[in-house]
């Protein structure tokens, strides 16, 4: 694979990944949102494997496999279980409606290009062109967390943000060292399991997974 082909493929897949993050805003049913996240994780894994083949890195190859296992299979299962147990409240209930939310995504993408283009320009790797797209994914993930009231959607926003950061590190440096990447996966997995417990506790205590129902703590 030549550097030019890799660069084009990376651009395309990063674009798809950002598109999937934005798709999370359009999707209103929680099961659909979980599927979008799983699909995005698979796209990132494909990207990681391509870069691994290009750079001949066995570690990155293993990271890609772990990504499929943890974020493509395990975490979506945990989330689906949570959605099934919660039952009724499957609509995602954003603060902002879809149309203005999409406009904000556009603005965030422009900001991402503004901040990250100088960094990308100074980077000699063939994958560097897509760095602003990855950062846009981080910002949109953050926006999803702020915009959605449902605890499950907040978790999905957090995971999309994590995916964006993984992609950013992958594009800028071909991934951080193996031990760090594995530790990060472990942290994310434990965080999601803890968040799942909290979804149940919030449901039990407030009879809703609407985080807006909480609001006792002030001053």
């Amino acid at each position: 694979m030549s550097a030019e082909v890799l660069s084009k493929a990376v651009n395309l897949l990063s674009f798809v990944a950002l598109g999937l993050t934005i798709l999370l805003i359009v999707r209103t049913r929680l099961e659909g949102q979980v599927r979008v996240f799983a699909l995005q994780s698979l796209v990132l894994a494909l990207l990681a494997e391509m870069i691994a083949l290009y750079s001949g890195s066995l570690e990155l190859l293993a990271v890609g496999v772990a990504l499929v296992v943890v974020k493509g299979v395990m975490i979506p299962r945990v989330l689906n279980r949570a959605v099934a147990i919660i039952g009724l409240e499957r609509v995602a209930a954003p603060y902002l409606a879809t149309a203005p939310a999409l406009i904000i995504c556009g603005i965030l993408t422009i900001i991402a290009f503004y901040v990250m283009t100088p960094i990308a320009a100074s980077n000699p790797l063939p994958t560097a062109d897509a760095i602003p797209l990855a950062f846009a994914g981080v910002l949109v993930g953050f926006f999803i967390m702020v915009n959605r009231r449902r605890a499950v959607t907040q978790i999905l926003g957090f995971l999309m943000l994590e995916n964006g950061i993984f992609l950013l590190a992958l594009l800028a440096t071909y991934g951080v060292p193996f031990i760090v990447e594995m530790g990060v996966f472990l942290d994310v997995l434990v965080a999601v399991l803890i968040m799942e417990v909290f979804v149940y506790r919030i449901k039990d205590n407030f009879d809703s997974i609407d985080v807006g129902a909480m609001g006792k703590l002030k001053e």
Partner: protein
Amino acid sequence: MTLLGLLLIPLAAAGLIALTRRRALTELLHILAALATLATGAAIIAQVWNGAVLTAAGDLFRVDALSALMVAIVTFLGAIASLYAVGYIRAELDDAHLSRVRLFFMLFHLFIFTMLVAVTTDNLGVMWIAVEGTTLATVFLVNLRHTRTSLEAAYKYLILSSVGIALAFIGTALVYYAGAAKAGEIAVNWSALRAAAGALNPEVVRLAFVFIVIGYGTKAGLAPMHTWLPDAHSEAPAPISALMSGVLLNVGLYAMMRFKAVTDAAVGEEFAARILIGMGLLSLLVAAIFLVRQRNYKRMLAYSSVEHIGIICLGLGFGGYWGVFGALLHVVNHALAKSLLFILSGNILLKYHSAEIHEVRGLLHAAPWTGALFLAGMFALIGLPPFAPFISEFIIFRAGLEIYPWAAATGVILLVIVFGGMLASVNQMLYGEPPVELPRVDALRFWLVPLGANFALLLVLGLTLPSPFIAALEQVLKILGV
């Protein structure tokens, strides 16, 4: 060897405690582990302060004087809080809640373990993992009481800290990229980055530092990322509040200091200084606003942590020998004073069953030891002589008045507002008529004895700065490039 022992003791303790069935055994294991951690920590600190740099597991762990200072804070205050925790948890959770008692002590040691990994590793990626680990270890501790407010606090803490720390990962990855591009194949090791710092791409390092300050600043409780802090610190059980406010915030600061040393060498000192001074002043402002007429004494202590982290950031930002020296000294002083006060707040809560200031009356009469210690601790915290925080605050603002007079003067004004607000609140609690049904006795009187150590250190450091301690801090200054 000792270094690996320091990390393995709390980890093994957490595992063993999870297996225990009898409460007495759980508590015994807990105390033994805390004391063993303290002893191992002391051995390591003694070696490092004699000039050694300890390493373990290849280049994964590396303890220099800055790490040793943090190890001292974690293990010492960890031991103090662990002793009190036994009595406090006995009062809070009876034998009907044994599984939660076990969970508490298990997570207590996991919490200590993650903090120790964060401050002893040389690998910035592993440090990130460990700092995220501190959040995961403490979130169930915040929610230990299963109330609605503690649930809300814990969820907010989990989400905001996770997002904050995720941003710190961007910073770490950018620094790694800057290092890998210049120094060739290096690991994400701080010592290697520090050595190569002069050659790093300044544009990348600047952007990275912004992410680092937002990310680790969230963990350190800097405004405006502090919003989880008053909730989580006030809802957690007292010994955990003591460790979160007195120790964990410093771990966030520690991470920022490591990155600041690299950033200073790469782009000059002014860049980081301006950011830290700005956020330090904002933290002081937020604390001042919420400390005037604060209605809940645990939240009062939590906002005071935002204030003190702000003061430390001002010291780091003012820079120079005295600015950074004062900041390091204030890290120690605030840790001692805040853990003392949060533990006492647990005693007040057990006595009055309320965290509202207006429901606590006549503390000095109803619980003389708790009241007297609380008053003395408060004097230390708001910076009255002869206690140590007075010295460190004086050093910091004196250094600031010479270099950044406007910022320092603003800081002093905000400090005076905080002073007045907190003194008024404490005044309401200490005097007046206690509710008639309260007997005149301290809760957990004997469990307060270890606090004598905090108190003695606050006095000693306030009256004389022992020269071995100054020498140790000067070693840290050298590491930070001052």
